[in-house]
Every structure is written in C-alpha cells, then in structure tokens.
C-alpha cells in the first residue's frame, strides 16, 4: 500500500464516520480528534473502519501512533502488505 492509497483510505473511512470532516483540515502538529472535533466513539469508529477495510488488527496500544494524519498513513503503509 502506497502512502497515497493509505491517505485515500483514511479519507474514505473518515467520510463515513464524520461526513463533514476533511483530513486536509488537520494541521501538521494537530491530532485528528482535536482538529476535527471527534469524540472517542468517532475515533473508535475510524479505527474499526480502517481495520475492516485493510484486515489489519490494530491493537489498542498502537492507538497513540494513529492520532495524527501522518502517523496514521505511516502506520497503515507499514502494516499493510
């Protein structure tokens, strides 16, 4: 999976979870949850969606790596084969 693929996937799942949210609106030093005004249920739904789409089992201890757009894309590209 390329970074572009990963980003597209994140966008698609994010649109399901929070239709009004755009990943581009998240600044480089901001977390997705903060910048997009998402609560913990929204974030969980994002993780569930990504896990379902990629087949990657994302353990909870990895969540801290997923809080920024860059971290999320890096994580997905590293884990998806």
């Amino acid at each position, binding site marked *: 999976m390329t970074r572009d693929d990963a980003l597209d996937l994140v966008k698609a799942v994010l*649109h*399901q979870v*929070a*239709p*009004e949210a755009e990943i581009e609106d998240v600044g480089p030093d901001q977390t997705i*949850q*903060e910048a997009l*005004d*998402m*609560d*913990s*249920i*929204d974030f*969980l*739904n994002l*993780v*569930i969606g990504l*896990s*379902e789409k990629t087949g990657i*089992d*994302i*353990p*909870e*201890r990895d969540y801290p790596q997923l809080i920024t757009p860059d971290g999320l894309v890096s994580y997905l590209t590293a884990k998806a084969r």
Partner: protein
Amino acid sequence: MGAFRMPSLGADMDVGTVTHWLIKPGDRVDRGDIVAVVDTEKSTIEVEIFESGVVDSILVGEGEEVAVGTPLAQISTNGISTARTEAPRRPQVAPAPKSPITSPVVRRLAEKLGVDLATLAGSGAGGKVTRADVEQAARLLEAEPEVVEAKPEIAEPELEISKTEQVAETGTALRRGSASVRPPAGTRTARPSWSRASPLARRIAAEKGVDVSTVRGSGPGGAVIAVDLSRPEPSARVQRVPRSPPAPEEEPARGHEARGRQAAMRRAIGNLMARSKREIPHYYLSTTIEMSTAAGWIERTNLDRSVAERLVLPVLLIKAVGRAVAAAPEMNGFMIDDSFVPSSAVHVGVAISLRQGGVIAPAIHDVDQLPLSELMKALRDLVGRARSGSLRSSEMSDPTITVTNLGDLGVESVFGVIYPPQVALVGFGRITDRPWAQDGLLGVRPCLTATLSADHRASDGHRGGRFLAEIERLLHNPEEL
C-alpha cells in the same frame, strides 16, 4: 380506542412536524412499532406507538406542524373498529388472509421491494410476517425473470414523468413496485418514499434539488449522510428533482434557512435551560477519582477483543452511573408537579453533540441491566443515530438521569444544567495525570473529575455525596460493572 398524539420528545419540544407517515387507515400496529417520522427543532425522530390496534384514521397530514398533545391518528384497540357495526370479536379460528399481520416497518419494506404481503406466509410469532420473510421474497423475485405485465411506458399518464425517469434510473425494484403491485397513478400521488437521512444530508439534498429517497445511504442503518450527496454526478443513484427555474438570489435565502434551523435549535435549548435554571434549585458537588484501576482494566479487557468489540471509557462511566443510582434513588426519576417521582428503571440520557451544532441527550434504556459489551454496542448505535437523525421517540422522552462527558474535548470538569423534568446530571471531564497522595506516598496517577448537578427539591448534598462516592467505588472496582 385511543388517539395517538404528538408525543413530547423532550421537555424542550412544543411543536413537531409529521414528515412521514408509515401507516395508513386499516393497518395493524403493535406497541413499539415505528409509525411516523417527526421533525423537531433539534432532530428527526422516529415515533413509536404505545398501543396495539388498527389504524382508524390519520388526522394530521405530512408536513403539518402541530403542538405536542395534538391527536395525530385514531387507533382502535384489539383490532376492533370502534364503529359498533363490526361483529364482536371471535376466537381467531379463521385467519383473515387479506391483510397479513405485520408491522408498518415491514409493510413499508415490502412496498419498497415490490413484494405482495398477501402472498407471504409469516414466520414470526402468530404468523406475523417479518422483515426476513419480506427480504427472502424479494430475493426470490430478484431471481425470477422479469415477468411484469409489459405495460407500455407510454401508457403512463404524463403526470408520472418524474416517476418514469426514476424507474429508468433506479432499475427493477422500483419498476416492480410501480407496475405490478401498485395500481397506476391516482391512488397514490407521487409521494417520495421515506428514507433515513441526516438533517445535514436533507439540507444539502434540498439545496442541490436531489430527492433523498433516490440516494443510496452509506451511514448507520443505510441512512443517507452528507457524503452520499457529494458523489460525482450524474450518478445512477441520484435523481434530480425538476425544480422551478433557478434563481441566483436564492443563495442568501438558503443560508437564511440553515441559520433559521440553527436559531430554532438554540432557542429550544435556551428555553429549556432557562426553565431549568429558573425552576430547579441546583446544587453542585465535585470529586476527583483516581482512574489507574479502571484504565488498566479496560486495557486488559480490550487485549482479547477485536477492534469492533473494544470498550471505551465512557461506557464504564455510563454504567457506573446507572448502577450507582441504586445507592441513591433520589437521583433517578422525575420532578412532577413539585414532587419527586423516583423511577425503578434506569434510562441514562447521554449528551451527544451534533455536528451541525447543538446537543441532544437520548436515553440508553435499562443501563443497570446491560452487560458492558451490550452497552458499548448501544452507545455506538445511539451516537450514530443521533448524528444521522434517526432517534426513536422512546429514547427522547424517557431518560431518568443524564450523563455528560466532555472529557474528549479536554476540559477537566463540567457542571451541567439539569434536563427537566429529571433531577440530576453527572458530568465527567478528561483523564489527566495528576500528583496523587495515597498511603502516605506521592505519585502521579491518571485522574478524572466527576461532578453532580442535582435538584435540591429531590435530595440534599449529603445524598448527592453518597451517590458520587458510589460512582467512585464502582470505578475502582470495574470488574463489578
């Protein structure tokens, strides 16, 4: 026999608009069936009926705004029409095959899929036709070659042009629906079939001139959400509704409408909160709860769970509140005519912020009885439906206590305003690492501030303190939850 009235979907509701009826005269309804969709200033609610019976007449048309308490429909109970001319009830030896027993929702589904209910044998209780029966029949229909009477399209009256276009675009399901099951135009004027859609999606659809019912929803429960409307056009799923000539000056008007809806929501919230502050003698308590045990417990529990089954902290908090009211029943119930009426059921209202602004606090029922996994599912479902505008009337009208959790937004504590006629509201802030002294040692621990806003007419600070202490005890013993 009874009147089905416009329900009060929360104390902040004075009027509601019936946007869709899911029943018609002659239909059989069962207690709990969703029979209508009502728009309030805050949300779109699916309204359930509280009585079983047969629909006698519909008294309020779609699109009409009426006050809470206005009779919407007449329901005759026990399947007997109120008209005395009807034969008295007999033991049901010979079932009447004409109108099979089913619920409005199933009937609606059948209509949508073009299935004739009279041809189905129900597999549900008492021969009731279930959703599964209808879906199976629809699959069979799908498999059959198209043998619809080849009614030439030209024969369709001109009135039906938009419908014909729709047929051409959305394919066989609709064609079956309109050609073989429904008699041709006239009996049923082109009423758009109802579909779930978020308030935002409805607004966007109206702006784009798109009929929401023709859009395939990707939100919870197939609800149409905003993103479904931003797919590239022209799409096979989206049908443009012919609109009167476009007017460039419409632009400001539309902004106006959105602002109008926002303003109505703010007004509704403002009125209720003003009433709460005017009438309820609030008292406030606060306590800091050490959360390392609870946080560790969730982490360990989630290790064995798949992503979709993991718990989040709010579930633990909601459950703790639901259980703690057993130790302080004065917190759970309603203030009615200046006297407190405790509730034996624990329906916890959960404050959910809406993306378009505003907040809504629908209930999760019987929280004290629900295992955590079930509660987690219920919470995800509720949040999804709150945001897509498909909450149910029972969820809106009967929370017995409310929980607000602003921890996600980073505040340390929240002192809420009680939601009348309830008498208590529990607020949770964010978990933060704080210096914590325990057993004579100072350490850094994750801590959470829990607050209580309670009604002095129903309880005193002493009891409120007892309640918060019980919440703390439960969170220190999460395996009990």
